[in-house]
């Protein structure tokens, strides 16, 4: 069995308003940071997972992302995978 470290990034789709991102952008400007054009907040999920090779692990992660980690009505996801 191979072990992999997976980082999943879940982001609100561009068409979905992100009020938390807007509020953070506003605070960033109050802090004095200049030049911020856009700020959106997502989630990063770290998973350590075992499987017989990368393909099998990708299948599992695809299922997890599609059915649990992200709600594809409002969110997109992508992930990176590193063999340990």
């Amino acid at each position, binding site marked *: 069995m191979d072990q992999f470290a997976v980082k999943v990034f879940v982001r*609100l789709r561009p*068409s*979905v*308003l992100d*009020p*938390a991102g807007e*509020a953070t952008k506003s605070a960033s400007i109050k802090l004095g940071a200049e030049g911020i054009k856009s700020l959106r907040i997502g989630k990063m999920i770290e998973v350590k997972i075992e499987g017989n090779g990368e393909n099998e692990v990708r299948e599992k992660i695809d299922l997890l992302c599609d059915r*649990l*980690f992200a*709600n594809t*009505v*409002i969110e997109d996801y992508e992930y990176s995978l590193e063999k340990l």
Partner: protein
Amino acid sequence: MDNFTVGVVVFPGSNCDRDVSWALEGCLDVRTKYLWHESSDLSDVDAIVLPGGFSYGDYLRCGAIARFSPLINALDEFVKSGKRVLGICNGFQILTESGFLPGALVANKNLNFICDDVELDIVSSKGGWFNNLDEKQTIKLPIAHGEGRYHCDSDTLKKLVDNELIALRYKNNPNGSSFDIAGITNEKGNVLGLMPHPERACDEIIGGTDGLFTLKSLILK
């Protein structure tokens, strides 16, 4: 309808289960039974309410974890049989997460947790959940949510409109919901999800009775 029993689902973090039970039993004399989320036996209930609250602490997304409970797995057959399911607030969020209703509920536009009475237009008579047969087309119900902004893509919205699946719209949209949507039904009409709380408007002494009709309609066949 003497033996008609409404199942009120209890998740870890539900907090309107007792209110729903009180409204049904105390105000409408309808028998209720609490259903723990790990139960998948729905054989002795005739309708189901998914109450408000914060199931599983709203972890990941509101309703996202509750979707995987044995009870929600068993709900598919219950819904297909035509029995009625009412999802209130967190219950509505669970119904969208689990695919019984389209769209999703996301953070309110102004990021506030909004606790208020709102005026609502009754849009569709599908499922007979609202009393819109007379001239009164507007009701007032309480809302209490931080993540009640209904969102769907334009194709889904068109489908909702074309098939008369939009049950309720806010008169003054409090949370930024698409098309002012406060509640929708499935195509068959036996599943209703809404952000306002009908169970909190079942007695004049607590500010109104506009929620009674919806709870009463649970016993429709």
